[in-house]
C-alpha cells in the first residue's frame, strides 16, 4: 500500500464532487455579497436561509469527518515505530474509531436535516493538513488545528440545536464534541512528548499549526463576532489543553482573517466599479 497519499488520490464514489477553494475565492459574486448585509452569519433560526445554510454546513462537517478519519488512518500507517511510537498509533486507531462513528452520525444528521450524501461539493483542504511528512507537524495540523476547529464547529452546532429546540442535533453534537476534546488532548500530549528534547521541532510544529489555523479562519469563517458563522469555543478548548494565551492568539488571528477578507472584498469591489466605469 502506498505511503503518504496525496489528497488528489483520496477514494470517493460517484456521489462525491470535489471543488477547489479557489472556485469560491474567484467567484465574481463574492465581492458584491461581501458589501451586502446578508444577516448574521452566526447560526440562528432567524437568519435568512437558516435551513439551507445548516444543511450545507452539516454536509461540510460530514466530509470533514471522512477526511479526519483518513488523516488519522494515514498516521497509523505512514510512519515506522521510531518516527511515531506504537502508543501514538494506538491513539490514532482509537481516533479512527471515533471519526467513523462521527461519519455515521453526520450522515444521520444530514437525513434529519433533509440533505443527502454528495448533495454539496467537497473541498479536501482539511486532508491537506494531514499530508505533512513529519508526524509531529502532522499531529499539530490535524489534532490541534483541525480537531480544534471541530470543537468550535460542534459547539456552534450544539448551540444552534439548543436554540432551535432540536434535541437530536444538540445531543449528537454534544457527544461528538466530547470526542474532539479528547483528540485535541492527544495531539497536545504527543506534541509535548515527541518534542521534549527538541524545542526547535516543537516550534516548527506550532508554526505549522498556526498556518493551518489561519487557513481554517479563512474569510472570517471562525471568530468571536456575529459575522463569524463558527464561534471560538474557548471553554472547550481549555478542557482540551489549549492555554488562554493560545486561545487569545487564535482569536486575534481570526480577527485578522476577518479583516483581511473585508479588505479583499473592498478592493475587489473598487476594482469592479472602476472596470464598470471604464466600460
Amino acid at each position, binding site marked *: 500500500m502506498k505511503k503518504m497519499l496525496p489528497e488528489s488520490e483520496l477514494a470517493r464514489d460517484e456521489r462525491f464532487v470535489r471543488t477547489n477553494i479557489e472556485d469560491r475565492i474567484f467567484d465574481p*459574486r463574492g465581492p458584491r455579497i461581501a458589501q451586502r448585509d446578508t444577516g448574521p452569519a452566526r447560526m440562528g433560526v432567524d437568519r435568512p436561509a437558516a435551513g*439551507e445554510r445548516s444543511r450545507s454546513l452539516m454536509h461540510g462537517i460530514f466530509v470533514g469527518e471522512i477526511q479526519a478519519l483518513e488523516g488519522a488512518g494515514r498516521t497509523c500507517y505512514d510512519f515506522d515505530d521510531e518516527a511515531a511510537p506504537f502508543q501514538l498509533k494506538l491513539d490514532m486507531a482509537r481516533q479512527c474509531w471515533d471519526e467513523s462513528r462521527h461519519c455515521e452520525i453526520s450522515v444521520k444528521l444530514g437525513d434529519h436535516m433533509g440533505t443527502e450524501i454528495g448533495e454539496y461539493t467537497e473541498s479536501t483542504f482539511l486532508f491537506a493538513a494531514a499530508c505533512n511528512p513529519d508526524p509531529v507537524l502532522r499531529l499539530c495540523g490535524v489534532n490541534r488545528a483541525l480537531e480544534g476547529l471541530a470543537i468550535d464547529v460542534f459547539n456552534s452546532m450544539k448551540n444552534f440545536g439548543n436554540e432551535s429546540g432540536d434535541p437530536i442535533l444538540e445531543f449528537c453534537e454534544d457527544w461528538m464534541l466530547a470526542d474532539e476534546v479528547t483528540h485535541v488532548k492527544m495531539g497536545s500530549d504527543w506534541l509535548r512528548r515527541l518534542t521534549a528534547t527538541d524545542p526547535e521541532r516543537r516550534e516548527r510544529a506550532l508554526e505549522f499549526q498556526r498556518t493551518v489555523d489561519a487557513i481554517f479562519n479563512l474569510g472570517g469563517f471562525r471568530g468571536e463576532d456575529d459575522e463569524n458563522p463558527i464561534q471560538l469555543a474557548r471553554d472547550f478548548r481549555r478542557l482540551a489543553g489549549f492555554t488562554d494565551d493560545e486561545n487569545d492568539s487564535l482569536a486575534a488571528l481570526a480577527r485578522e482573517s476577518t479583516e483581511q477578507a473585508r479588505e479583499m472584498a473592498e478592493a475587489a469591489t473598487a476594482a469592479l466599479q472602476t472596470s464598470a466605469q471604464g466600460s
Partner: protein
Amino acid sequence: MTAITVTPNPFTLVPYDVAEIISLLEEAAALAGIPSGVDIALTVDEELFAPLTGHMSDVVDGRVVLWISGGNFEDNKRPCRFSAAQARVDLSVMMLRAKDRLSEDFAAAPLDAQLLRGERAAWDTYAAGRARRRGIDVRRPRQLYDFRLQHGFTNVADAAFERCWQAERVTWQGIREICKETGAADRGPSKVPVDLLRRK
C-alpha cells in the same frame, strides 16, 4: 395572453439563460393553474449564491411578482452553473403560492416581506406538498426540517406539518391557526427582516 419577464436580461455574473428560465416559468405556471392573461415578472438576484437562498411570491395589481435568489438556481455540485431540476422545484412552489394569492382564500394575506417566518414555513409546506403530488421532485425531509425550525421539534408541530403537506385546500386563516397551534405565532416578528436578502 400572458407576458412573462425575467430580470436581469441577460445575466452578467452567472451563465443563466433567460429563455430556459422563461420556459420553466411557463411550465410552473401551467402546473399551478395560473390563468391566462395574468402577467408574470420574475427578478433573479444574480449576486446571491448558495446557500444564500430564498424566494418570494406576491400579486401586485393583478400581476404575479416573483423574486428569487440566484442561489436557488445554482447547481450545488457545480458552483455558478444553472440547475434546471432545482429551478423547477422552487418555481413550482412559488407559482402555487402565487396562485393562492390570486384566490379569495389568501386575499387577506400580507405581502411576503411582512409574513412571520412560521406563516411562511406553513404556506411553503402546503405548496410543496401539492407540487410533490403534481410530480415535482420536492424532498419531504428538507421541507419538514425547515418547518420544524420555525414551528418546533415537537409532536404538535409534526402533526401540523403533516396536515399542511397533505392538504389540497388551506386558507390564509388556516395558516394562521396552524401557527397558533404550534406556538409559532407567539414567537413574534423576526429580529432579522424576512426579506433581508432581497434588500440591496
